[in-house]
């Protein structure tokens, strides 16, 4: 069974805006594939085309070898969640799922099963519009899983979930992949994807930036670490450390940011020259930094650059 998502030279325009441009990649079964890109990069547009909702201007999408709109049992082929808030606010979660199930001839017992599987049994009779974002996410995931689909496509499924919910969904996605399903999950946060996915598709401004594995992506991340040092004589220390393979920058507060040397070398060099070290630390470049570096030229909306780059801080979020 080949349940791959095959995207070939896919292009989609909305008026003058090109949302997705000449995109080609394959999402394979058996692993969780992350779909990463800044907001506005074209992730949701691509997912809508995978679900057969938007028509490509050129290129093609196939799921399990056929165009998404050619499936006679679509919920068996691909289950998707695009927007967890896309429910009728006064209809109960149960009836929301039941109406969806009935279109494909899926029984009431399966509706009850998916409700249990996402942990919504106690609230299934309540209007879906009154759900918290976390509950709405679970309802959206329940809808995606109704038909026991070979391919699962989720747009930002972790948004709004609490820590327990995030852990739950990671386990769920891993289980689905282990069952041999194709699992394609978008996020705009690299740190999130790194803990969830094995494969990685990165896009920016509608174009493919990387089609790789998460571990390769992390290994290839530039400027893996640098040393931050403050001392009694920064100028001398700077001259002392300078070498062809070493780059040194000055941070706003006067500290030196040294790339290419381990911290113990910096400390030893300062000590040998009689310079008092006031502060010495290794800063790990975060995955987020690597991602930002990679997509720097591909971000559509960006605040104007600040006058001087501030010192790298610990990984946020």
């Amino acid at each position, binding site marked *: 069974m080949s349940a791959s998502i095959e995207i070939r030279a896919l292009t989609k325009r909305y008026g003058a805006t090109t949302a997705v441009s000449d995109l080609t990649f394959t999402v394979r079964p058996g692993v969780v594939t992350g779909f990463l890109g800044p907001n506005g990069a074209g992730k949701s547009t691509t997912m809508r085309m995978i*679900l057969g*909702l938007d028509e490509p201007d050129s290129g093609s999408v196939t799921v399990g070898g056929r165009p998404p709109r050619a499936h006679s049992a*679509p919920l068996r082929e691909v289950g998707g969640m695009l927007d967890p808030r896309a429910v009728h606010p006064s209809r109960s979660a149960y009836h929301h799922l039941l109406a969806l199930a009935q279109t494909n001839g899926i029984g009431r017992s399966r509706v009850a*099963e998916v409700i249990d599987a996402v942990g919504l049994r106690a609230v299934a009779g309540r209007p879906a519009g009154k759900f918290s974002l976390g509950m709405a996410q679970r309802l959206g995931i329940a809808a995606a899983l109704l038909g026991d689909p070979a391919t699962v496509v989720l747009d930002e499924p972790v948004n709004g979930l609490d820590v327990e919910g995030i852990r739950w969904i990671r386990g769920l996605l891993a289980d689905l992949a282990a069952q041999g399903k194709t699992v394609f999950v978008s996020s705009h946060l690299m740190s999130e994807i790194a803990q969830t996915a094995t494969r990685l598709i990165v896009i920016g401004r509608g174009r493919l930036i990387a089609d790789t594995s998460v571990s390769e992506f992390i290994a290839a991340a530039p400027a893996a670490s640098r040393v931050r040092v403050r001392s009694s004589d920064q100028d001398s220390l700077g001259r002392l450390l300078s070498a062809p393979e070493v780059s040194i920058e000055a941070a706003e507060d006067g500290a030196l940011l040294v790339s290419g040397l381990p911290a113990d070398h910096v400390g030893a060099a300062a000590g040998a020259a009689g310079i008092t070290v006031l502060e010495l630390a290794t800063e790990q470049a975060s995955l987020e930094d690597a991602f930002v570096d990679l997509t720097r030229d591909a971000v559509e909306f960006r605040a104007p650059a600040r006058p001087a780059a501030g010192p790298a801080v610990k990984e946020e979020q």
Partner: protein
Amino acid sequence: MTSMTPNPALAPAALQAYPRPQKVTQARVLRSEWTKLRTQPSAWWALLAAVILITGFGVGYSLLLQARPPHGAAAIAAFDPAAVSLAGVQLAQIAAGVLGVLLITSEYATGLIRTTLAAVPRRLPVLWGKAATLAAATVAVSLPAAFAAFVAGQSILGRQHLAVSLSQPGVARAVIGGALYLAVAALLGLGLGALLRSTAGGISALFALLFAVPLVAGFLPGSWADDVGKYAPATAGQAITTAHPDPTSSLPPWAGFGVFCAYAAILLGLAAIRMRRGDA
């Protein structure tokens, strides 16, 4: 997975495989649309409003004419007691039409339409399913209401010896026609809602079609006002709700109803083209 779950209500269970065969059929989509209609409170409110308007206004108008009966042979000859007791249909068409608009625009407004169409990628079964459930629900609710309004109205008008019975020519057709008219008005709303994908736009267009078009036609010079006006959607459709339509200002009952149905069919057809092609 996790050994402790702080909230037992949200404790997920393992999901089993579901090997039973699946397939989208028109009948299944119809069932799904019926589930949606009956679990959408706004639909019940609209149908309740239709019942109240049909019966309430029918009784009220009958009482008014009982108090001020027609004078003179010509006025009595032109008096249509069946139409008087069914006058509420003209107000109830607002409720039915708005229900039709809302049935589809609520899905566009919330984004639910994407979930729906991802499950039914051929898309048109959704539109036909909505049309069928909408028409059936409207008839099911408004036919008893029209009958009740007729019976109550005739018992009131009977005090002035103006009542007619269902067995008289055209009377039963007018009562049933009231319910049919409302079903097609609802379909008109559905077509406009699906075409415009906006609640405000759909309701505005519906009001323009039902109320503004006859008004504008009335401004036409001389006999044009009647000749053109009788083809206006509401005027044409309401020929079926009167026992004795006036041939100068309205089409024959079934012909008029046919014209009204044609408007709805054209709008639903255009909506189908828009829905089938392009982006959901």
